[in-house]
């Protein structure tokens, strides 16, 4: 298996409700895989399992060929190689933008404060927020906060980025600036797993689209195929609902 991320027969349940069952998925290096599926189909749960924020019930998750679900691996080290961005940004409100970004490099990787600061400013420049380095998250717009959150997860130089509906909490006119960042990341060759309801974005950027249903990947294929000519009834139903909601 040469995939960057390989998931095999993953099972995850909360109490009696099984969210993921016999779930398998491969993501190759430099690929962008988009996850779609109804609310509650387990997209967030999957991403949280990959980032080891949840313990799985069964199955294997391999990152760069190593089983990271093994209790003997250093979970903190694994997490620092994976970046995750949440729907609700989750910036640290008591820290400035700059301190949000430099916290992990300083405390986890032991980067000297001055160097961490320089690197953070470079990253902020890239996302167009250098002039807001000393602002607190609450003084930024939603789109700016989400861009800071992405910048924060990028300073660790992750090998894999996970995005969990990162535009769902944003006003429509702010969605574009965040999606533009994801496009940039793809062009730089970042491997990404993206849960989203932005079908237009999925069409343009995804290498593969996976439709999640009943705890597993029900349908997987190129975006034109899954979004255009789905083979499964459930996928068709889901897409029809999305179209009715005016999101396609």
């Amino acid at each position: 298996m040469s995939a960057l991320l390989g998931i095999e027969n993953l099972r995850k349940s909360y109490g009696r409700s099984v969210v993921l069952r016999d779930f398998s998925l491969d993501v190759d290096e430099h690929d962008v895989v988009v996850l779609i599926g109804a609310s509650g189909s387990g997209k967030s749960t999957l991403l949280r399992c990959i980032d080891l924020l949840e313990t799985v019930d069964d199955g294997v998750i391999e990152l760069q060929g190593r089983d990271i679900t093994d209790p003997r691996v250093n979970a903190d080290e694994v997490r620092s190689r994976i970046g995750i961005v949440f729907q609700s940004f989750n910036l640290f409100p008591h820290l400035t933008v700059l301190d949000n970004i430099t916290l992990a490099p300083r405390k986890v990787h032991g980067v000297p404060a001055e160097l961490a600061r320089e690197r953070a400013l470079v990253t902020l420049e890239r996302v167009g927020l250098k002039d807001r380095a000393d602002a607190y998250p609450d003084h930024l717009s939603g789109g700016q906060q989400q861009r800071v959150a992405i910048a924060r997860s990028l300073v660790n130089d992750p090998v894999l980025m996970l995005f969990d509906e990162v535009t769902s909490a944003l006003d429509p006119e702010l969605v574009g600036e965040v999606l533009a960042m994801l496009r940039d990341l793809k062009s730089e060759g970042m491997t990404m797993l993206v849960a989203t309801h932005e079908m237009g974005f999925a069409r343009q950027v995804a290498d593969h689209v996976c439709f999640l249903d009943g705890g597993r990947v029900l349908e997987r294929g190129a975006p034109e195929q899954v979004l255009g000519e789905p083979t499964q009834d459930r996928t068709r139903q889901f897409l029809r609902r999305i179209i009715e909601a005016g999101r396609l």
Partner: protein
Amino acid sequence: MSSAEDTWSPSALQRERDAYRKRQGLRSLLIAGLSTLVVGGALITAVVSAPGWERTRTTFFNWDKAVESFPAVLAGFWINVQVFAVSALCVLIVGMALAVLKTLRGPVFWPLRALATVYVDVFRGLPLILVLLLVGFGVPALNLTGVPTDPIVLGCVALVLTYSAYVAEVFRAGIESVHPSQRAAARSLGLSGPQSLRYVVLPQAVRRVVPPLLNDLASLTKDSGLISVLGAAIDAVRAAQIETATSFNFTPYVVAGALFLVLTIPLTRLTDRAARRYGAVPGGGHL
């Protein structure tokens, strides 16, 4: 964008509104001032014209006696200040440790968590005066070597035992008010559990509980006066008591009270300032 040639001047309507607000403000001020004068005047007249006022004045507000007792009471008050400073520091440290223990998850920490829970339940439930008497007289009675018998030290221990239980609950409320997504965000960046607590959860938790925390500390300043029940420590209250016993004049108590106010009132003002500065820390990371 407003430019340099923006020559706005209030419209007639706005000027009329401003004038109205000003009139209203003046009227409120006048009413407030007048009612304060009336009520205050009535109170003073009532007290001063009371049949026992002359005697009350000489027994409680005797200037000569106040001047005479001041040095002794002040010396005692210095002990209160020291007791307060040392206890407050220990209370914050022990309280924080207890709160962190109580929020630890996982079966490994069960004994620690249980211990912290029992501690808080017991010392929050016992009256302070009882803890003071038990520690102050019980510990020396044990005759253990190496254990301090100084009543001031034992008084501090009793204060810390009781107050750290209260403060632990304040800190714990703060820790639990930080949304779990903050910890998840910290962990996802590779921070360890203790690091997430130290750099992400606790700073937010502490800022949120600054007002109730300073409230407990203000209460602690006053209760530092209770160590006088241990007798040997001559704090402000005890000093006042001694001064009173010789002359049957209660002015020294008033002097001691005034000294406590000198300490607690600035602390309360500080609380308000700190609450405005830190209490309003935005939380959660949600829109």
